[in-house]
């Protein structure tokens, strides 16, 4: 990596990453899956969830999907949390476990159907 020496260098990285982080908000870019992996998420079981998502994505040979960890998403009560960003839209899946996560990959990422029963709205209605 060349060292960053100017605003132009920062800008270059920003443009390179825009695709990945869906910064344009125009629907371009790959689908991004993030798993909340702060202490709170990990304690609730986020590590096996992240692994399940990665395994399933590999198994289904999904392309144009990036899976990554992130920090605290905020709502501890519903951890582990998996969020999927695609076409500028975000879906929040809560109280995940490896099986649920695998199902989300299969239905949402491979099949393009939101698994409503695992979303934050369903969890809140339940209570």
């Amino acid at each position, binding site marked *: 990596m060349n060292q960053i020496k100017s*605003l132009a260098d920062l800008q270059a990285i*920003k443009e390179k990453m825009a695709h990945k982080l869906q910064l344009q908000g125009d629907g371009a870019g790959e689908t991004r899956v993030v798993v909340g992996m702060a*202490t709170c998420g990990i304690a609730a079981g986020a590590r096996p969830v992240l692994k399940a998502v990665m395994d399933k994505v590999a198994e289904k040979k999904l392309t144009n999907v990036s899976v990554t960890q992130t*920090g605290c998403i905020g*709502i501890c009560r519903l951890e582990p949390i998996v969020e999927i960003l695609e076409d500028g839209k975000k879906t929040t899946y809560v109280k995940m476990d490896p099986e649920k996560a695998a199902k989300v990959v299969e239905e949402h990422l491979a099949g393009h159907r939101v698994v409503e029963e695992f*979303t934050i709205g369903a969890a809140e209605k339940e209570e």
Partner: protein
Amino acid sequence: MVTSLNETKFYAKQQRVALRNCGVINPEDIEEYIARDGYSALCKVLTEWTPEDVIKCISDSGLRGRGGAGFPTGFKWSLSAKTKADVKYVCCNADEGDPGAFMDRSVLEGDPHAVVEAMAIAAYAIGACHGFIYVRAEYPIAVHRLQIAIGQAKEYGLLGEHIFGTDFNFDLEVRLGAGAFVCGEETALMTSIEGKRGEPRPRPPFPSEKGIFGIPTMNNNVETYANVPQIILRGAEWFASMGTETARGTKVFALGGKINNTGLLEIPMGTTLREIVEDIGGGVPDGKKFKAAQMGGPSGGCVPAALIDTPVDYDSLTKIGAMVGSGGLIVMDEDNCMVDIAKFFLEFTVDESCGKCTPCRIGTRRLLEYLNKITSGKATLQDLDDMEQLCLHIKSNSLCGLGQTAPNPVLSTLRYFRDEYVAHITEGRCPAGVCKDLLTFVIDKDKCIGCGNCARNCPVNTIVKTDYVAQGHKLPSYEIKTDKCIKCGACMANCKFGAISKK
């Protein structure tokens, strides 16, 4: 159907500045941080601004310290900038010790580069060349991600020498604390970084003149730093447009206790406690009534239900005997005994008192003894007055912030819930049914069907069969011999017929 967090009530009233990248970027990838305008603020100040410009911007923004005291950040920076010295340090206080608080941990775990960038900006503003981040060793993930962040920043040339091709050099290191609460106090923190036992020392000399290893040092809290890059990029006016007249910007809170939505949230200063508890927090579970919220942890005070419409900002909370503090917010319902709560926090400060000064070492222990006397029903009303006196003595005579604020939970519960203290003393009764010494468990002999489940579950075998058979029942009822009862409540929890109650 709501399918995204952003559409929920929990999220609606939030405004994310310090947490803007938490839960969005991968904290272990500097390029994701850069993609979200990371290090642009550092580039801007190094290539376009003078140190005076930076300080003016931070002063104009109205940012105040987020660690608890609320000292104006711009003013602190200008004091450090004025100190004449060849070498200066910047320091980040990440020794988050309040029970139930996890704001700093979340920022470090979710967006460590924001703190690294802000410290470099601060160093440029005051003329420092080296920085320390003091984190507690109990935060291994935060430490790990910070170290990755520092490593990446060095690799990309964003720490080190000639940053952005200028003459500015800055290096950063992480120091681990062993988790003593007192090390969150800035002089104790600096002593600990020096490798000595973490004890506070009197000020003056202030850290801006004599800090770590005698070198002028500027300390700021994690969340304070996390706000800085955004203020530089979006301008002081933007930041000052949020919040209230005396408290600009936003504040992160760790919401816990008897609340539906336990979590981490960031709201504009001046949001009322009601909005936090009812809208964002989703109210108290099980239909129970909100009784009070403890703000500011063991150094803060409680806000009773009657004052739930108080705006959350430095001055409004100080006026009613609580504080914004570092951001711990613990909600209590009608099942919480306020004397017991005060006792909980005092037990904490007694444990955590470093022992250097007498008012704190001895005073807090005597104070705890008074509280124990009250919760065991042995106190007199005179004790209540004496206790209040003792609180004021500890506050005015302790060496550091730990002792000076330790009596706050007692004083504020006394102020708003004196009747509960008096009930313990004069009636020998704990209104919330928490204080064990004042409780008696009784079996309603007419409701008892004689199944014996309570007796089997009693760990001290103090529940016995009687001769009495209630009308309509076949088996004789049971009774609790109170002399041996340890008031564990196992009998009540195991009675399926609601025949056991506590008084």
